[in-house]
């Protein structure tokens, strides 16, 4: 670190969120800068790139009001850091970690680089603890495991926020010790570019569920500077790492909406005149998203864990859009919301077919959930897929053209959506979820069961009702 901060009055160019500073000596990539305007106002910035004495600085609060003549820039010599303290639980901050709840600033216990460092793969502990969210489509078919990163792929107008809040309030993990000390459960909520209405929705939800005291909130609203969005998930995860790996908490992190984050990344990319990739997003977006998502996990010898639920909006409900596509390649599965199911009045409108939890097998089975869990999930999937095929068929040939068996599958698919997926406001235990699963499976003749062990069928198969 430098002892003296250096001041420059050599701004040569201002372009979008970027500012070009000349004759810089000894600047550092990633160091934070203060831009002092003629009015005395100070804006924060960060050095992105250095070339031949020119520093490219992204200005967080936007470049409005900065002029090349009278504004000056101070380089701090320090990379972006955030102060951390246990007092931050229950508090609300803006997208770059400044309090916005009217309370005084926190006195930090430590200050850490918001970019974090990659977890050494040999230091990671294999996730293996089942988290019961109380939602059948997740617990039964796409089980969430402690230390996992499982995003919700939503579309505009779909109830992703409601689902996230429900998961937050219902999530139980065996072994967490309630509200005190190590092993306690806390929440970090990071919001990028959400509306004031959404922010209020979450705030109210936290208050009503009593979770507010164990929640740290970082909010960048839709009308806040976009560049700050690049900082919000990193600050949120730095807080989560502090809680999980310094204080031993089981931390659930919600980041919403990653699509807004990606758009901010694209904005900086185009301001830097980088070669755009698919849909204008920068070519390094995969790596950039990975440095966020990969911060979830467990570490050997540490009691805490970070479970990450990012929410993102699929533009036009298109799962092949770069944001959901690249996210899906990094995260350990995905929960996908579906507009048709939403229109049918199914809540949560989870389309289980494209959903996946890659870590499911680590968290289920005897001793964790139930020994028949894997088989029930696989068989429900196979039958439901077949039922959906039958649904497509009747569009062409009418229900009369279906064989008797296909008609059974058709009914199965309808009932599955109505009784298994749909669960307005209900908090289901895992064994209740699996029992409902068996009831539904029993609508199909035993001879059709190919993915489940004989011994479980005899124990659970009941005559369909």
């Amino acid at each position, binding site marked *: 670190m430098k002892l003296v901060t250096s001041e420059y009055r050599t701004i040569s160019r201002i372009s979008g969120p970027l500012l070009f500073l000349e004759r*810089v*000596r000894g*600047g*550092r*990539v990633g160091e934070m800068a203060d831009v002092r305007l003629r009015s005395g106002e100070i804006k924060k910035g960060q050095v992105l*790139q*250095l*070339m*031949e*004495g020119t520093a490219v600085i992204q200005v967080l609060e936007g470049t409005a009001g900065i002029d090349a003549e009278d504004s000056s820039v101070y380089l701090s010599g320090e*990379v972006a850091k955030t102060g951390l303290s246990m007092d931050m639980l229950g508090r609300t901050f803006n997208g770059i970690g400044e309090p916005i709840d009217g309370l005084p600033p926190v006195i930090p216990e430590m200050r850490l680089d918001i*970019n974090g*460092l*990659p*977890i*050494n*793969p040999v*230091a*990671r*502990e*294999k*996730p293996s603890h089942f988290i019961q969210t109380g939602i059948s489509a997740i617990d039964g078919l796409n089980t969430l495991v402690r230390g996992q990163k499982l995003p919700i792929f939503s579309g505009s107008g779909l109830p992703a926020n409601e689902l996230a809040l429900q998961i937050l309030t219902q999530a139980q993990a065996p072994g967490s010790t309630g509200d005190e000390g190590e092993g306690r459960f806390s929440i970090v909520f990071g919001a990028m570019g959400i509306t004031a209405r959404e922010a209020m929705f979450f705030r109210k939800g936290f208050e009503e569920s009593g979770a507010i005291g164990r929640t740290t909130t970082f909010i960048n609203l839709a009308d806040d500077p976009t560049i700050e969005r690049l900082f919000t998930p990193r600050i949120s995860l730095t807080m989560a790492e502090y809680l999980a*790996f310094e204080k031993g908490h089981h931390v659930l992190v919600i980041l919403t909406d990653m699509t807004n984050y990606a758009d901010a990344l694209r904005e900086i990319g185009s301001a830097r005149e*980088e*070669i755009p990739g*698919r849909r204008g997003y920068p*070519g*390094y977006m*995969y*790596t950039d998203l990975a*440095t966020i998502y*990969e*911060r979830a*996990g467990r570490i050997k010898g540490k009691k805490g864990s970070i479970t990450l639920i990012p929410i993102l909006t699929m533009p036009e409900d298109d799962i*092949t859009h770069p944001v959901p*596509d690249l996210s899906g*390649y*990094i995260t*350990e599965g*995905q929960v996908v919301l579906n507009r048709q199911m939403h229109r049918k009045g199914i809540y949560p409108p989870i389309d289980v*077919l*494209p959903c*996946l939890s*890659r*870590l499911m097998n680590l968290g289920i089975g005897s001793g964790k959930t139930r020994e028949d869990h894997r088989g029930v999930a*696989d068989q429900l*999937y*196979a039958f439901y*897929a077949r039922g959906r095929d039958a649904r*497509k*068929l009747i569009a062409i*040939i009418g229900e*009369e*053209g*279906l*064989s008797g068996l*296909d008609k059974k599958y058709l009914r199965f698919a309808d009932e599955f959506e109505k009784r298994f997926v749909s669960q307005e406001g209900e908090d289901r235990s895992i064994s209740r979820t699996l029992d409902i699963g068996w009831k539904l499976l029993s609508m199909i003749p035993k*001879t059709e069961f*190919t*993915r489940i062990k004989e011994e479980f069928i005899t124990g659970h198969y009941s005559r369909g009702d």
Partner: protein
Amino acid sequence: MYEIKGKICEISGSTVIAKGMVGAGMHTTALVGNDGLLGEVIRIHGDRATMQVYEDTTGLGLDEEVISFGKPLMAELGPGLLSGIFDGIQRPLEALKAASGNFISRGIKRRALDSSKKWDFVPKLKKGDTVSSGDIIGEVQETERIVHRIMVPPGITGTIEEIKEGSYTIDEPVTLLDGGRSISMCQEWPVRRPRPVNGRLNPDTLFVTGQRVFDTLFPVAVGGMAIVPGGFGTGKTVVEQSLAKFSKADIIVYIGCGERGNEMTEVLTDFPKLLDPFTGQPLICRTALVVNTSNMPVAAREASIFTGITIAEYYRDMGYGVALMVDSISRWAEALREISSRLEEMPSEEGYPSYLGARLAAFYERGGRFTCQGSPERTGSVTIISAVSPPAGDLSEPVTQASLRVSGALWALNTDLAYRRHFPAVDWNISFSLYYEGLKGWFAREVSEELPSLKNEAVAVLQKEGELKEIAQLVGIEALQDSDRLTLETGGILREVFLRQNVFSATDAFCPIDKQFRMLKCILSFYTVGLNALKDGLSLDSVLSCPEKASLFRMSEMPVEGFSEWALGYIESLKKRFCL
């Protein structure tokens, strides 16, 4: 050794430009900045050298010093590679953890191999023998299973003046040659250059994976190359991991290139416990891991596949059959694209540099079956199984297409199958293998001459099933002829029983090739006998409701022992029921 010192004048992401670098060579390494981050020169312009830096450049400053030693990026090769886990530039992750804790901080340097550990060296040659490149001078028991053959490094010849026996570290000389030269158990090799061989051999032996859809339908030969493209969630990693677990190879090199940390943790915790189905030894004893997860520095990700294949070639040179798993090559290509764009090179398709295809081909062609250099005479192979992650699952994208041009087998994974939880989600309509003709002799010798024709019949049934399904969607299934409905049923059985395989089931995860053959034979016998029965006037219901059809579904979970007897009995009982 000479030193060239320069100063940083530009920093952009993972690329750094330094001036005052006259004399620095292309693809030589340099220590960059006050923290001494490792970098590699990738462009020279006047006195300026552009380097890709293998560590995070945050906090790196202008005017900091750059030192080049004129040495390319090297891999360290010797006993201790197996059961080791390294990052993209071969730093041992365990040692990094000991040095910097749970998170990887910057500027830490650690040797790949443990230089304090002693290995028992057993000489195979004696004083007075003349040696040249690749000759095996002695052996070390590296793991319970693998004998590590100590070879004369490429390019060295001479007469042995002294050869030792006993416990030595990798740096102590175990053989002295005339002229004062010595050979230790450890050698270095530049990762970007293929290790020398004597000649290439034909791929004519099956690379046994124990997965029915691969071995029987789309086999890859020992020394061949298969690519596994698929959208997210289609099971690329599960395919790579089950091949790493169950395929018949002496050595596995697994490259986790820009993928998930938790997946590597799974490999790390599972492999010491899982046993090799062929030898009963823990899998980790035959495995070396090169891991550069998606959040680790992007330039080191670019280097990781070269580090990995150099280790693979080194064991190949000992005469071993090596399988190289790359998961995923697309992440490597993205790293290449990112560096290329920082260099402001003219992009071609999708922003990838125009040399993407050439680089990929050069990498893939390092695989193959070879006669190795040196004596005794031996052959070794590197079989490459490379996962590809096409954006949006679209196979027309550049990385998939460039890989396809040089690959011998395509195992395309299909999102729709994955949604139905049909795993491995291999799309039998577009996958292919160019090795089949060359492997026919092997199948005839090791399994049965009948297998290729059974396979053709199965493919034909699947093809017909696809067509019939389309018709059934238009006219309804009841309108189809009985024989066509039997074809539909058989296609369903082939998919559900034969192509689908449960990697989580202890019995089904690995299916020996002989059981594969017999399963296929049973299914197709049911089909043939059933068709004849229909011709003889029996009803479709009587064929479909026979207990022989139901028992087909239990085959995958039946134990391997006694399966061939069961299969013979099965065909007998089929004939008894329908051919009287």
